[in-house]
């Protein structure tokens, strides 16, 4: 082990850091009367949109109603309901991708976020695609992040991500621009 | 109740009218007020400028001089904050220190809690802008800080003004932004201090205020100095001056 490791840890062990005890009033995380409505509103503010369907069999039709999907030439998805028109052997091969559809495991109302844990190749598709759709079960919706982490175990996959809208930036004079590097649009499809 | 009047050094020398108004108000409310003449300065300026050693000497003096009194009332929120919130950084905890901390109150907080509001009825014609003292707000927790999510904060200054007939409080857009005085800051960082002050003046002017009030005198001296230089037609009255005038018996 490196000398720096030992000396950093030694220095830290020699240090007595005064414990700080803030007087915390009891609190409990916010829950919503209408979590789905909250999710939709959050996602909309963040530049995304929501679609609800009753069953997976409606998925293709629901996406077909969206212009970016209709116009897409190169579509990729591990979902059996979607007809992929593009595949890549290398992560960089997804650079031309028009539309990716991925499965989300869980949605969080307070943040308008969906948890995805894509495989390695799905992962680059997820960020290189011009447009992204995430498909998530309606009953996986939780109220807040505390509830989300109570259910999730991020350490089970090499990569997992809360996605809460299309890629965006406000680095030029605070003007919000959608589509900084990654997808220019995000649609979340709730089913069930 | 035997009340000691704590008059900050700069109020004593530069704006004595605030101290006179404080005295008059307290006496009008029936308090037996004494001004301990040995007092000079609480050490705030020293402490805030890095002179903790010097401040410690003055804090020790303060403790001796004000020990005999039941209550200590002061028309400057920042000086009160120094005594109640920061003497503990300078002096070892002692029964004397704890007693002084518990006894020292800022004028508007004292009036709002110790005097029935009926005793402070009065009239004021005109629109009042409040320039909250940052130390009153964020050290003494008097007033609503926009940064925090507290339910119903204790806001004695506002309550006292709302009690005046005819008075209309007009809030600027940024209700609790610092005026830019900051003690030595105002002379060490003149460019930023000036701009901060001018922005407050503009904000109060746009809100339609004709007079700006505060529980700290230093903020008002700085704003008044700027307004006079820039010919901004705003008046500046410390809350003691304003209340004393508004509650004066017309007869």
């Amino acid at each position: 082990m490196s000398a720096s490791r030992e000396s950093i840890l030694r220095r830290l062990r020699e240090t007595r850091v005064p414990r700080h005890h803030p007087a915390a009033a009891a609190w409990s995380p916010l829950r919503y009367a209408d979590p789905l409505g909250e999710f939709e509103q959050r996602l909309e503010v963040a530049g995304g949109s929501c679609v609800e369907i009753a069953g997976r069999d409606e998925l293709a039709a629901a996406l077909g109603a969206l212009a970016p999907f209709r116009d897409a030439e190169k579509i990729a998805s591990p979902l059996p309901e979607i007809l992929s028109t593009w595949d890549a052997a290398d992560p960089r091969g997804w650079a031309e991708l028009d539309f990716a559809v991925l499965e989300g495991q869980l949605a969080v109302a307070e943040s308008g976020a969906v948890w995805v844990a894509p495989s390695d190749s799905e992962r680059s598709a997820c960020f290189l695609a011009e447009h992204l759709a995430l498909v998530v079960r309606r009953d996986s919706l939780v109220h807040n992040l505390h509830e989300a982490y109570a259910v999730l175990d991020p350490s089970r996959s090499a990569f997992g991500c809360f996605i809460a809208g299309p890629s965006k930036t406000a680095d030029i004079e605070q003007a919000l621009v959608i589509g900084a590097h990654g997808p220019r649009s995000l649609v979340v499809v709730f089913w069930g | 109740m035997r009340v000691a009047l704590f008059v900050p050094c700069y109020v004593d020398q530069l704006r004595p009218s605030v101290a006179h108004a404080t005295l008059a108000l307290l006496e009008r409310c029936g308090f037996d007020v004494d001004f301990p003449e040995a007092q000079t300065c609480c050490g705030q300026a020293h402490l805030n400028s890095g002179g903790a050693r010097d401040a410690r000497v003055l804090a020790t003096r303060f403790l001796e001089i004000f020990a005999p009194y039941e209550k200590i009332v002061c028309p400057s929120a920042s000086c009160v904050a120094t005594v109640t919130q920061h003497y503990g950084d300078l002096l070892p905890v002692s029964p004397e220190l704890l007693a002084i901390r518990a006894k020292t109150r800022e004028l508007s907080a004292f009036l709002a809690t110790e005097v029935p509001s009926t005793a402070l009825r009065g009239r004021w014609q005109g629109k009042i802008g409040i320039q909250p003292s940052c130390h009153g707000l964020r050290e003494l927790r008097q007033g609503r800080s926009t940064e925090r999510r507290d339910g119903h904060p204790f806001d004695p200054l506002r309550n006292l003004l709302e009690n005046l007939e005819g008075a209309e409080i007009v809030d600027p857009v940024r209700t609790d932004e610092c005026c830019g005085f900051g003690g030595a800051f105002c002379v060490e960082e003149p460019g930023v201090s000036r701009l901060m002050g001018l922005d407050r003046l503009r904000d109060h002017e746009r809100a339609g205020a004709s007079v700006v009030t505060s529980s700290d005198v230093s903020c008002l001296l700085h704003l008044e100095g700027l307004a006079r230089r820039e010919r901004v037609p705003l008046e500046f009255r410390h809350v003691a001056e304003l209340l004393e005038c508004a509650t004066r018996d017309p007869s």
Partner: protein
Amino acid sequence: MTHPERANAFANNEDRARWHDQALWFVRDRRDRAMQGLPEWEGLRAEAARIKGETLSRLADQLESFEDNAIASGAKVHWAGDAREFNDIVLDLLRTRRVTRVVKSKSMLTEECQLNPWLEAHGVEVVDTDLGERIVQLRREPPSHIVFPAIHLRKEEIGETFHAHLGSPKGLADPTRLTEIARGDLRSKFLGAQAGITGVNFAIAETGGIVVCTNEGNADLGTALPPIHIACMGIEKLVPKTADLAVFLRLLARSATGQAITAYTSHFHGPREGGELHIVIVDNGRSETLANPSFARALSCIRCGACMNTCPVFRRSGGHSYEATIPGPIGSILEPVRDAARHASLPFACTLCGSCTDVCPVAIPLHHQLKAWRGELTERALTGKWKRFCLALSRAIFERPGLYSAAGRLVRWLGRRLPRRWLYGKANTWGIARELPEFPSESFRERYRRERARER
């Protein structure tokens, strides 16, 4: 140069200073609205402060369990005592893998250690991929804010920069089109990169995982495409448990930009298949900060930037006026720990208004620490001699009520008698921008004494 010199220059360009003030106030306003949306805000802040406090008090154990778990997940962990060692570790990792093209997402740590110039000097092209950072990188300027690196620039200036470096049409100043041009340019950099460097927002002790938050998705592209991921973190980035992330993520984006959460919150546990994940843990003065009881809590900072947005001085003096990697209130505490003499003016660039303390999501008592710094700088004789003399002199006067009254009388007498020309001479820094107050002929105590004597 000291802070006042640079700040005066910025503030004296009133239009620009007001524009900068307004831009950041706008962010503060959005943050307030996001805060209002969470009734438990103050409880959440206290919880965050508690977790960070606990973590810092047993940081060595936490770091060790983080390391064990990270290694178990397949990551390689490296330790750097200082900036030099950190730069060497990264360069060595790249060299042994023959990497010459690197993309980097935001990391204030790499800024602090000056990693870019080091890599460039050794033949590695580093491209900052956060749009704001890319802008200042092209301009060869340091970032002026930790969340909005290019907040000091107007869109016209950015347009000129892009015209010069990226061949955008002259005069183009539309943010959407400028962003589009940057997107196109950076896309090719992402695709061509051999390694991706990221910062770390949170490191989880119980799993060995790291979390990176961005809005642009640049950290994700930078780690999904090239096979090598180098994550750089200070020792203070730890949280004990995965569940703790909920507390910090709820606070972070709301405080930083007013969003409920950033567009991407990415969790990494080990490398992807066939790839490498290297985590470099850096001290570079942090353990010394921790050893100083006055400032230890400053290490709880989660770099949201809210204290900068709310600071009335920062908004009117600009981030560059601090000449520090981390500007604003938190920077004015952290930077002097590294080099007190160089940054001695920073703790004084503050009115002690306390807004930063109230806004801080981890409840660091920022303005009290700034005040503590002033005391420490005075003790170490790093403040001006004249200032220290004035403090001692005035204290000596205040100890003697008779002398104090006489001095007051003299000052007021002079104030009333001296011709304006003298009164507003060079020494009167108050008078640069303001009129002096009217000097009363009698102090309060003089009149009080006179009236009481008459009563008796």
